[in-house]
């Protein structure tokens, strides 16, 4: 019989150890009498889906501290109790086995996609220390401009960038919404005031789309709103080179020549003005520059537009008349329609959308395009004070100081900027939530990043970009954050959604906290907000809303302000009116009025098809491809090609084809269809991950961005677009059977 004394004798621990060492559990479990009574009822936590910018509010049902299911929040004016297929399956992200769990650093100095970085787990202290130390070294030797931050332009990012003194914050806006933003701000709201996405489709009687496919991207609210409008008898007319999901619901689908929507719009504007079909009262009360606009569009006849666009002149005139005389009418718009950022003329298309809506009195009127209604909230700067920021140099690595209307960075020019080392060499990068396939010609960016001394990446997933990182910072999902979010994508009335996250899993952290930790470690504590000041700011927000967090929770997670819609009679421009001739554009030296700009490229003998990049309802950017059910629904992207063109090339449905541009070549499954122009090939985005760390996403489909050229800033400046939009569809390709 072995006694405990004998056991201890045999245990052979080092002399310094003791029975206490042997008695040491790891501490994952704690005794709990409370725990012995498991919760019978699900608790509710409220939150906002972070899959897309729609930001549908959800209810998370929680058992024993773990989220078990989701529902759309019925009180949210965006979700209205529903979630799209991506939102519904988003718990897969929270519980994804591939998720980044702990900070890691590389031990293999050799960097490359598919090259094992030989990660080791490290503490947050070490991870933050690595970033801070490197940043300080680089700032001392090469200046803060040698650090590039790739991230969305959230307030804490802008603050971080200013605090360290670099001008280089690279945001994806010019690959996303910049042309719409600048058009809207310059003509209607004033700079930096409001996004152009709230549209009252539900009450519209005539919806005109130029490449807009909100329902096709499963934009929750808009899909339902368009359906409801159609059920009430609204007319839907869609101009699109391909038969999109929205086009499939339309009364008319017009397969317009891509890049020529501007011609049709200019002709429509001319028709409405010349035939006196515009809303006289609205124009005289709320606009300036009408006469200049009238003068400008005289030359753009429907017959002229027909030659350019393949849309018969008679049809252009008929639709213009219908649009102007069916009230209320609206031109639908969002990112990646013809208004941007697809073509060299997209900014002017975005302007024309606003002009059309204004001519029929549909700006901030029921059934039209609405200025966001927001609650009046205090600003953080009233509570949190910082010393003056260091003065950053003006020149940027992406050359965007040459675009006076936007400073948000350029996805298209940054790679060549880094490689050219002009105007200066860059030594380090910090990425937040961007991945290589989000960029055009990602191989160039990969080449550029390999020249850097240091890369830090914060993300939820081990993307291919993390394979180039020196340090990996695992981020929490939107289920693990806290706060109060405005309704932005659809704000017919002021509303705020409570965000009550569960505690972050593993050892993940929100990026805001990470940034403040980096600042502290860089001895820039003066730029880290005081906790008490932040608490006071938070308290002030609830006071401004006249409520408390507890009260919002008990009211279903949503605070709602005054629902009564009071149309605006003043706008945010310097003149307080809708400006057909925006003073902002004039000041910066740009033609304030739209004018015809030819597409940058046209199909030719060698590359006979224009590339049309679009989105599907079941994927979102490069974020959702690791969700198994979404891949089950749609395992890979396809190249949609006109059926007779496919026949000519001996391509059948399901065959793999090479699609090649002057930039790159990808292999993708073909889908012959009647629903596309014969001079186009349409490929949907969100596939082509090279990182095996995302085990579901890897190897599925191809990345169409590999076909799209990046540019130097000089090349970009040749395009007369004041918004620096990236022109995703200004690519011509050839197709061959693989």
């Amino acid at each position, binding site marked *: 019989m072995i006694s405990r004394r004998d*056991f201890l004798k045999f245990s*052979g621990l*080092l002399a310094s150890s003791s029975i206490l060492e042997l008695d040491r559990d*790891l501490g*994952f479990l704690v*005794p*709990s009498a409370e725990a*012995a009574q498991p919760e019978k009822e699900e608790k509710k936590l409220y939150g906002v889906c972070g899959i897309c910018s729609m930001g549908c509010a959800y209810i998370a049902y929680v058992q024993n501290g773990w989220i078990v299911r989701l529902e759309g929040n019925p009180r949210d004016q965006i979700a209205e109790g529903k979630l799209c297929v991506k939102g519904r399956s988003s718990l897969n992200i929270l519980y994804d086995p591939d998720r980044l769990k702990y900070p890691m650093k590389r*031990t293999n100095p050799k960097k490359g996609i598919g090259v094992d970085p030989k990660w080791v787990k490290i503490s947050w202290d070490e991870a933050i220390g690595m970033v801070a130390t490197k940043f300080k070294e680089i700032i001392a030797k090469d200046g803060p401009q040698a650090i590039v931050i790739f991230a969305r332009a959230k307030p804490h990012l802008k603050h971080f960038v200013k605090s360290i003194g670099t001008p280089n914050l690279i945001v994806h806006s010019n690959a996303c919404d910049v042309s719409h933003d600048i058009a809207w701000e310059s003509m209607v709201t004033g700079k930096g005031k409001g996004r152009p996405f709230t549209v009252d489709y539900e009450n519209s009687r005539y919806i005109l789309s130029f490449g807009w496919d909100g329902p096709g991207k499963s934009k929750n609210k808009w899909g339902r709103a368009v359906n409801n409008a159609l059920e009430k008898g609204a007319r839907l007319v869609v101009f699109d080179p391909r038969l999109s999901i929205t086009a499939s619901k339309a009364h008319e689908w017009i397969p317009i020549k891509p890049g020529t929507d501007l011609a049709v719009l200019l002709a429509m504007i001319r028709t409405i003005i010349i035939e006196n079909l515009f809303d006289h009262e609205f124009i005289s009360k709320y606009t300036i520059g009408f006469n200049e606009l009238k003068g400008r569009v005289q030359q753009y006849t429907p017959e002229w537009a027909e030659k350019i666009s393949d849309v018969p002149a008679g049809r252009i005139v008929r639709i213009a008349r219908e649009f102007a005389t069916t009230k209320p009418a609206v031109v639908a718009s969002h990112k990646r329609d013809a208004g941007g950022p697809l073509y060299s003329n997209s900014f002017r298309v975005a302007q024309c959308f606003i002009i059309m809506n204004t001519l029929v009195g549909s700006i901030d009127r029921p059934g039209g395009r609405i200025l966001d209604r927001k609650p009046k909230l205090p600003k953080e700067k009233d509570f949190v004070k910082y010393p003056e920021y260091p003065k950053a140099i003006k020149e940027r690595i992406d050359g965007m100081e040459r675009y006076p209307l936007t400073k948000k960075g350029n996805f298209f020019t940054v790679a060549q900027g880094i490689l050219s080392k002009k105007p200066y060499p860059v030594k380090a990068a910090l990425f937040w939530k961007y991945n290589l396939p989000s960029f055009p010609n990602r191989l160039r960016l990969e080449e550029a990043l390999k020249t850097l001394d240091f890369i830090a990446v914060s993300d939820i997933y081990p993307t291919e970009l993390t394979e180039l990182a020196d340090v990996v910072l695992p981020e929490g999902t939107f289920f693990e954050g806290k706060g109060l979010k405005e309704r932005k994508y659809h704000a017919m009335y002021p509303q705020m959604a409570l965000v009550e996250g569960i505690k972050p899993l593993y050892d993940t952290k929100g990026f805001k906290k990470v940034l403040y930790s980096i600042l502290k470690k860089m001895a820039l504590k003066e730029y880290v907000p005081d906790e008490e000041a932040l608490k006071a700011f938070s308290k002030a927000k609830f006071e401004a809303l006249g409520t408390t967090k507890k009260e919002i929770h008990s009211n279903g997670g949503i605070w709602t302000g005054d629902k009564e819609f009071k149309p605006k009679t003043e706008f945010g421009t310097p003149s307080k009116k809708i400006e057909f001739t925006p003073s902002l554009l004039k000041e910066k030296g740009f033609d304030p009025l739209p004018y015809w700009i030819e597409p940058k490229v046209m199909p030719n003998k060698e590359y006979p098809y224009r590339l049309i990049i679009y989105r599907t309802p079941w994927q979102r950017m490069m974020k959702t491809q690791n969700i198994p059910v979404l891949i089950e629904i749609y395992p890979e992207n396809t190249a949609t090609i006109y059926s007779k063109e496919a026949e000519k090339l001996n391509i059948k449905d399901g065959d793999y084809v090479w699609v090649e541009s002057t930039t790159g070549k990808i292999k993708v499954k073909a889908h012959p269809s009647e629903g596309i122009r014969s001079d186009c090939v349409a490929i949907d985005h969100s596939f082509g991950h090279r990182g095996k*760390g995302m085990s579901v996403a890897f190897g599925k489909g191809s990345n169409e961005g590999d076909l799209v050229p990046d540019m130097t800033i000089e090349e970009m400046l040749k395009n007369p677009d004041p918004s620096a939009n990236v022109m995703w569809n200004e690519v011509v390709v050839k197709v061959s059977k693989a």
Partner: protein
Amino acid sequence: MQNDISYRSGDSTEITYLRTFAYRAFAHCFIYPSKAWISELQGWLNTLRSILEDFGPSTEDMVKTIEEIQKEKYNLQTLQTLQIEYTRLFINATSSVLAPPYASAYSEERWFYGPPAIRALYTYQKAGFALSPKSREMPDYLLVELEFMTRLCKKEMEDSKSYGEASDICKKQHYFLTEQLMPWVSIWRKYVEASDRAGFYTKLAMLIEKWLKIDTAYLTNTGERSIA
């Protein structure tokens, strides 16, 4: 499985004591390698060897394996190798996590907090335990499940004043081993073996699997004795 564990009437408490330390030692061997871990590793391996030596001939190969591990030089020089292996096998890799140490990873649905995790959580709760607020690991993480077995063994010792009460805890242990731990650890061990480049984790995973089988057999026979 024929139980070769030498138990004698009246000394089940001693065996439970040893089992407690066995689970604890395996858990400590499995934590992320660090300087502190390296300095304690031999001690934990010695502990395991001593315990297993007392469990009869069925553990001879396990003792041999531990001796093999102990012959390797696990020092600060080899620490980084083990850290790299641990990270790629169990945390994140550029080729997906190779051998995730979570029960849910081996169930039908490909996500964590699946039915095995929920079952584990309820089992802990019924036994009067909650997940520590200091940890945000999944309920079915290997180290959590090993710790649960440790806790149950400790509870068995505390309850062993009355044989009937201890028997109840034994049933809980048996249930947890057969329904929760064993089903996935066997699969997990194969994944470790297929991908481990250093060899250490292959051996450790094999030891853990074998220990669970031995302990399951022991508890099966203990249960049969209690009925007889």
